[in-house]
């Protein structure tokens, strides 16, 4: 299994009038910004690989499914080392 690390990332988020939030874009770094095409699922989940408990967003990004986690007000992804 490849090594993974917990990477906190800046995320552009839209709040609608009801207060629901939807992540729009993940800014991995200056050269890697990924628009979120679709949110497929949101649920409370534990991240088994790098640790952490929070709301897990299943995001469709460039045709691929990726998990984005919101834990205690911060966003993180399991990034390849």
């Amino acid at each position: 299994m490849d090594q993974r690390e917990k990477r906190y990332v800046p995320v552009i988020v839209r709040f609608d009038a009801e207060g629901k939030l939807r992540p729009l874009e993940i800014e991995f770094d200056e050269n890697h910004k990924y628009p979120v095409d679709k949110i497929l699922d949101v649920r409370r989940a534990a991240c088994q690989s790098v640790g952490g408990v929070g709301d897990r967003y299943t995001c469709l990004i460039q045709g691929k499914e990726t998990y984005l986690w919101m834990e205690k007000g911060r966003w993180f992804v399991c990034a390849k080392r």
Partner: protein
Amino acid sequence: MGTRHILHCDMNCFYASVEMQRHPEPRDTPLAVCGSQEERHGIVLTANYIAKPYGVKTGMAIWQAKQRCPQLVTLSPDMDEYIRISRYAREIYEDYTDQVEPFGLDESWLDVTGSVGLYGSPVTIAREISNRIKFELGITASIGVADNKITAKLGSDYKKPDAITQISESSYKEIVYPLPVEALLYVGPATAKKLRAIGISTIGRLAECPEDVLQRRLGKMGLVLSTFARGLDISPVQRTDHIPNIKSVGNSATTPRDLENEEDVKLMLLLLAESVCSRMRDLASRCTVIEIYVRDTELRSMIRQRKLPAPSCSSQELAEVGMELFRRHYHWERPIRSIGLRGAGLVEDVGAVQMSLYAEDQRRDKWERIDRAVDHLRQRYGYMSVRRALLDTDPRLGHINVRDDHTVHPIGFFGG
């Protein structure tokens, strides 16, 4: 009332499991969450399943634990995180019933009697909860399924970790009777000793012992334990919104250094009494019983109590009575590591108390008024604004803010 369906959920090695979940690196190493060493609360709070076979146990001093398991990794507790995870667990439980009664952060009883129509059998619900705790929180739980709270708890203790044990009427004797009496809630070392002295070492023997024998030996508690042992506990699972009646207010502190003489103890009791009285005033109540708790450097503890002649919330009086109790019962075989004071038998502080001609009561009233004035000052200008000069004789002890830093969370099966 028909048969109830009660679950008892116990999250295994809770603090250690939460730490292992969020720090994946030490997952395969022996791990213990310990009180902070600098302030000398250096005991093991929870050890994980890798450390337990080495003999690392809750309550052990860190150095003892390291002796048994040199490669033990110790972590300081992060209570905010444990409270967060505990709250998430409760959210899971509340999807199935509104009767959820927590017992500490890691245990809860659930009454799912009314939920079986919607969610399936109690065991099905237990399995679903167990899976969700694993998936959503990344830790495991043991769940007991029975028709009362006491038996459900025996069920969750029966097999760990990550297990579901159903104890039905037909399997009750087979599963419960061989268990040692200590497995029963409220059978501590002292009660167990008394029971063993009359040849009762298992729950089965306790269940079959005539009630009058138990009552003679253990008083009222004997009857309660007999009911527990026979699986006939009828206490309800409290509702989520239930606000318990507060019956006692206590504070305790593990001091930054050992207490070695009466002066030290006097200082600490005063400090604790101020906090206890101030909290009683917040609840508009006075206590009729005073209880002290002392734990020595070998972690042996004793509790002694005494009834007061009249209800009181005078810190001076509480400290004095506490000191009397202490002098009478503590013989200084070892220095003291932690100490506590509790006001019990609370009664409502109704308007004006009957004025008395006796000097003793006038003195109490005077001290209570002084205490109230101190409360007001502290509310406006902070805790350190006004203090007893005695507390400055040893700043290391005297500067602990017992009230705000060391609130004891009361948990008890009887809702005390």
